[in-house]
């Protein structure tokens, strides 16, 4: 290990030691007056050291080493949250500390797991339905110009409908269970998929299209061999956007009538019971699920559109 890396490693160690010391000092009946000011000044210095270390770590390259900077950043954010809440004695019902959220996650894991399963069913069903419908309608609108003119403005309106308006109506139509939440997710994901697919189909180079014409290729052959593959980057764009949209809309839809499980139900019921740490645990679970969903689609995208210019570094 060269001298530079050794200094960075030492700095990380110093960060950890100071962090631990500061946190244990502010627990319980913390310091008062001048000593309290000293603690906050020391924390400010700690942040500066963190900045320096992150700068060094961000220059590392490689599969594992490249993750060090984001990992340290994430941990540092959690730490600052913890020390701010504990140090300033923030009421638990306003903002719980990360350790309280972790405890709630562990204590209520059974219920949260069942909630997650319920929401996941509606998210996946709605996502597939909405993206499938958007894709299908885009293909039709591409083939028949008349549909494109008439349908696009209507689809735009469907995309602008607020979730909080459409959710109670879906509950009335499809009942309280996962079907109504899937319907909301489908409506919300329809428009981005439609618009992006159309844009992708239209993005084909005119020269390539002429070439297919000279080969005597019909609409279907041109579609399958040229236009759909070119449209893939756009389609994946929509799929990635829709992954988070579907999750958000399903959770919000659960606020408006649901059985007594589901991430949205858990958030709304526990916030009213002032169990804010359980709320944050549910939020953390939803955020994690959303990131994993997004990441999976990004991986598939990488595999299928490796040829695209954006992957050339």
């Amino acid at each position: 290990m060269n001298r530079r890396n050794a200094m960075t490693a030492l700095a990380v160690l110093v960060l950890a030691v100071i962090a631990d010391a500061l946190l244990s000092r502010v627990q319980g009946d913390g310091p008062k007056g001048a000593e309290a000011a000293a603690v906050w000044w020391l924390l400010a210095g700690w942040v500066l050291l963190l900045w320096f270390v992150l700068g060094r770590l961000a220059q590392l390259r490689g599969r594992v080493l490249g993750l060090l900077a984001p990992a340290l950043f994430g941990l540092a954010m959690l730490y600052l949250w913890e020390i701010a809440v504990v140090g300033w004695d923030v009421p638990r019902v306003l903002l719980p500390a990360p350790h309280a959220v972790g405890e709630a996650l562990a204590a209520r894991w059974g219920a949260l797991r069942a909630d997650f399963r319920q929401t996941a069913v509606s998210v996946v069903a709605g996502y597939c339905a909405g993206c499938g419908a958007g894709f299908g309608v885009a293909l039709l609108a591409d083939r028949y110009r008349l549909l494109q003119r008439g349908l696009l403005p209507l689809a735009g309106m469907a995309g602008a409908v607020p979730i909080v308006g459409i959710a109670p109506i879906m509950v009335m139509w499809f009942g309280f269970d996962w079907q109504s939440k899937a319907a909301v997710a489908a409506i919300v994901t329809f428009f981005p998929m439609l618009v992006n697919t159309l844009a992708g189909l239209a993005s084909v180079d005119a020269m390539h299209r002429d070439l297919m014409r000279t080969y005597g290729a019909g609409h279907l052959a041109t579609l399958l061999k040229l236009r759909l593959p070119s449209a893939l980057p756009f389609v994946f764009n929509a799929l990635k956007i829709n992954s988070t949209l579907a999750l958000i809309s399903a959770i919000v839809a659960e606020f408006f009538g649901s059985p007594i499980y589901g991430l949205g139900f858990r958030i709304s019921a526990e916030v009213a019971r002032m169990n804010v740490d359980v709320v944050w645990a549910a939020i953390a679970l939803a955020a994690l699920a959303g990131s994993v969903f997004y990441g999976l689609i990004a991986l598939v995208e990488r595999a299928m559109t490796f040829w695209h210019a954006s992957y050339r570094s």
Partner: protein
Amino acid sequence: MRITKPTRLLTGMALAFAAAGAQAQDKITLQLKWVTQAQFAGYYVAKDKGFYKDAGLDVTIKAGGPDINPSQVIAGGGADVVVDWMPSALATREKGVPLVNIAQVFQRSGMELTCRNDSGVKTPADFKGKTLGVWFSGNEYPFLSWMDKLGLKTNGEPDGVKVLKQGFNVDPLLQKQAACISTMTYNEYWQLIEAGMKPEQLTVFKYEDQGVATLEDGLYATEKTLADPKMAEKLARFVKASMKGWDYAVKNQDEAVKIVLKNDASGAQKEGHQKRMMGEIAKLVGTGKTGQLDMKAYERTVDTLMNGKSDPVITKKPVGAVTDKIFVASQK
């Protein structure tokens, strides 16, 4: 310059007016439990008829709504005094927000479970295996206590009940999505009737009759507010004027309804519905001293909440959750 008699007189008058103006400045913010409706007639009447002004108070009434939990509003500093139900207030107190009951406006509970006869529910024994609609946001505690008393699990097991988090409307019953839904005697039940259902088609289980009633609309403030003698004195004046408003509203219901409708910013409330609501609310306010908390009813509420074998709403007997200090001061 010499201070002449007229100048002294004018200065004296100016100071007196300033003092009088300053006295009318005592601001108090009240957070209601729900939207503007006859359920809160007493406060709107007190404001409109000038009872608050006479007491030297400038009261801001904040309407509530879906997912506005008054206990959370006061915890966040958004109000000085809130209207809330006792189960929610006690549960919040246990979570670390020191709410204290300073007056109990409703002596009886208006909560009930309304069932369709064609769902096969005639007695509480028929609940097994059925779907029941319940509000959450702090209103689920009496229901959970009742189910616990009946020995019915609420997680959807075949020999328990399936619970739906109902929205603030009566559609689940109209659409047969639930066998029973939660209603208030003064609001949702009448929404069912207005939607076309007939009383003969419905069976109503009042929480009062089932022995699981808990105290509802009451006034709550935080311990910190009560510890400040100036605020305590302001609250005493507020309670006095509010109870005067309630007495007036119960005696002059039509006028009270007009005042409520005038204050309804949304314009969504209808006069006929509000008149019926006012009539039902008057039955809940009770016949004793308006605003006085009946300690026996308080004990009953605490027992109901603590008796949940599997999931009690509160785990220990509350200490210091109620005070008669303000009410006694308001009676002077």
